[in-house]
């Protein structure tokens, strides 16, 4: 059992929790994810790792109420325990293999959509500690859905916030913000986009003409998360890869996003998405 030792709501529907998991806290790296089970008859739910404290032995997760499973997680309180909490899973971000010297001369841009801000955070934190220059774009439905602004702001050089309704930051999509920066002539050595699949698809289309190296983190369906089931298979270039063990991060230009989005719907049942439907991309599609 894995105890929740801290919980706070970042927004009315997004909760952050620190969970006691000493082994995972010791080995977690940026880019990795974990799997939780809320009770003994529950599903194995993949979640991104938002932070980890090796000394305290805790791992931080951020969840938003979008369906039955995530609602159950959000309703857990400090002192409650997860039945299972397994990880870290997946390959760490590639940049952890680079030296401080290399990273300190590099400039990164992160494009975070909604809850995707959570997994971006440990990457930005790590790169900041290595002396890299970092810009971050956070996109959200409205002011209430923007998370980790202060934390992120403290680590990056420029933080750009966009909201669908213009209630905070600039009104518009992350793709428009990215395009504006690239048009202005901003140069980045590496871009990383994490968010809903549709957002990552359109960030990829936006970045392509600028030859901006871009990685995306794929949140596919998974059962075990260790390479056993193949539910997470994605087409990368002309190869089939397992997002859980070969990823979750892949070269964005090689990802077959349409297939990946279709496969996400494999077990779509009666469970309804919450009120927020990510609208990004829809405008461009028309």
């Amino acid at each position, binding site marked *: 059992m894995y105890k929740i030792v801290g919980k706070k709501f970042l927004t009315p529907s997004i909760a952050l929790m620190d969970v006691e998991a000493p*082994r*995972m806290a010791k*080995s977690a790296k940026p880019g*990795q994810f974990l799997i939780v*089970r809320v009770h003994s*008859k*529950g*599903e*194995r739910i993949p979640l991104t790792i938002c932070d980890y404290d090796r000394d305290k032995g805790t791992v931080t997760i951020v969840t938003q109420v979008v369906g*039955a*499973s995530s609602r159950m997680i959000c309703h857990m309180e400090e002192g409650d325990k997860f*039945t*299972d*909490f*397994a*990880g*870290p*899973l997946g390959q760490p971000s590639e940049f952890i293999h680079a030296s401080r010297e290399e990273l300190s001369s590099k400039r990164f841009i992160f494009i975070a959509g909604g809850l995707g801000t959570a997994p971006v955070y440990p990457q930005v934190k790590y790169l900041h500690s290595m002396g890299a220059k970092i810009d971050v774009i956070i996109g959200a439905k409205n002011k209430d859905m923007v998370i980790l602004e202060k934390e992120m702001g403290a680590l990056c050089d420029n933080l750009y916030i966009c909201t669908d309704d213009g209630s905070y930051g600039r009104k518009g999509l992350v793709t428009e913000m990215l395009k504006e920066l690239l048009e202005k002539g901003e140069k980045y050595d590496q871009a990383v986009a994490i968010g809903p699949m549709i957002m990552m698809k359109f960030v990829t289309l936006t970045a392509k003409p600028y030859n901006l190296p871009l990685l995306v983190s794929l949140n596919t369906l998974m*059962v*075990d998360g*260790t*390479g*056993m*089931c*193949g*539910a997470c*298979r994605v*087409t990368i270039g002309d190869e*089939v890869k397992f997002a859980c*063990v070969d990823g979750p991060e892949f070269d964005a230009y090689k990802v077959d996003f349409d*297939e990946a989005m*279709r*496969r996400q*719907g*494999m*077990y779509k*049942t009666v469970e309804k998405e919450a009120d927020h439907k990510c609208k990004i991309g829809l405008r461009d599609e028309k």
Partner: protein
Amino acid sequence: MRNKIPRVPVRDQDPQERVKNFEEVCFGYNLQEAMLEASRCLGCKNPACVAACPVNIQIPNFIYQVELGNIEEAASIISKDSSLPAVCGRVCPQESQCEGACILGIKKEPVSIGKLERFVADWSRENNVKFTNREPLNGKKVAVIGSGPAGIACATDLAKLGYLVTIFEALHEPGGVLQYGIPEFRLPKEKVVKTEIDNVKALGVTIETNVIVGRTVTIDSLMDNEGFHAVFVGSGAGLPRFMGIPGENLNGVVSANEFLTRSNLMRAYDSEYETPIYVGKRVAVVGGGNVAMDAARTAQRLGAKVTIVYRRTEKELPARVEEVHHAKEEGIIFKLLTNPVAVLGDDKGWVRGITCIEMELGEPDSSGRRSPIPIKGSEFDIETDVVIMSLGTSPNPLIANTTPGLETNKWSCLVADSNGATTREGVFAGGDVVSGAATVILAMGAGRKAAAAIDTYLKNKE
């Protein structure tokens, strides 16, 4: 003179009934039936059955005790060589091992050794008989990676020898393939698997779940920071193969591993669990092994009409005879000498069928089986909503990739000698991770051998 009666038949659940439930198919013997069947054993002086058993259970000895009605004594004899008798009595391919070697089988039917083993194990459970004798702790720690048959067998022997053993399991339930692979109707999880694992824990073995070795910890960290003196890797062969044919990523194509994990480990068949599973109206299972039979029979129970597509003939089916027999009884259709060449999708990206080609058998290949050759122009379509790929599995490269000095071969199996010693000092391995996908009992045999080798290695090191 031995009893010359025919083999005592075992009672099964009626096929018409059992396709509607996940209860165990085979009821097993009762005491009377078991004693009667035991009276058929010739008690050979040089028993071929013992030599043919991968863990060398003293078969005639335990059967003699069954004949006398001394079931506890029979259980004690089995427990010296096997830690999972209730499992092995159910899932071993006895026809090619103990029973295949039985002298009675030359002219008549062999002794029903598997069913007798199962009876003894079930009786022990029902009567709460446990064998927890072990040497006092010797101060040495061994880590076992994987709680499947290989790891369980290795941990049991080491614990009995006085080692402090911790098993690390990646999933949330211990048991490995017994938990995620073999269905409830063949191997009940609560009744059989959990009980046998509890017996291992009763020997003082600790099982830590949710630890993915290679990610959560590494072999190096276990040995350098956690004080384990030796490591046994029994992580199995969990990586599913796909065919590489067009349409394989359509919605509705799943690996047998995914399908069975959802149903077995995650209990998708039980509405109290949250796990989703999809079978549609028709399911095609590609492959002919035990896993293919398990997937087919599971899908049938979930309400689909199931066809098994296999590229050779019935004679070459790698599945146990009993499983094929049960599958047929349950109404599974076998489409033999048939191989898929493409999966067909509808306009929404869901499976609507498979295009297959007819095959004929050519010359024997390196495995000794006649190799299937496609017949030109014989393509035809089978309509189906779901395709389950059951083409075999290979070891997960995670441990090899994160352990310096641990070599693998071209099938990504760990390289190990006949005692399980790998290319890395202090690290031993056995079961599917070394042999590639095989059987429960072969993995157990390898686990036992490695336990003996670890004991020798650690004693010599002193």
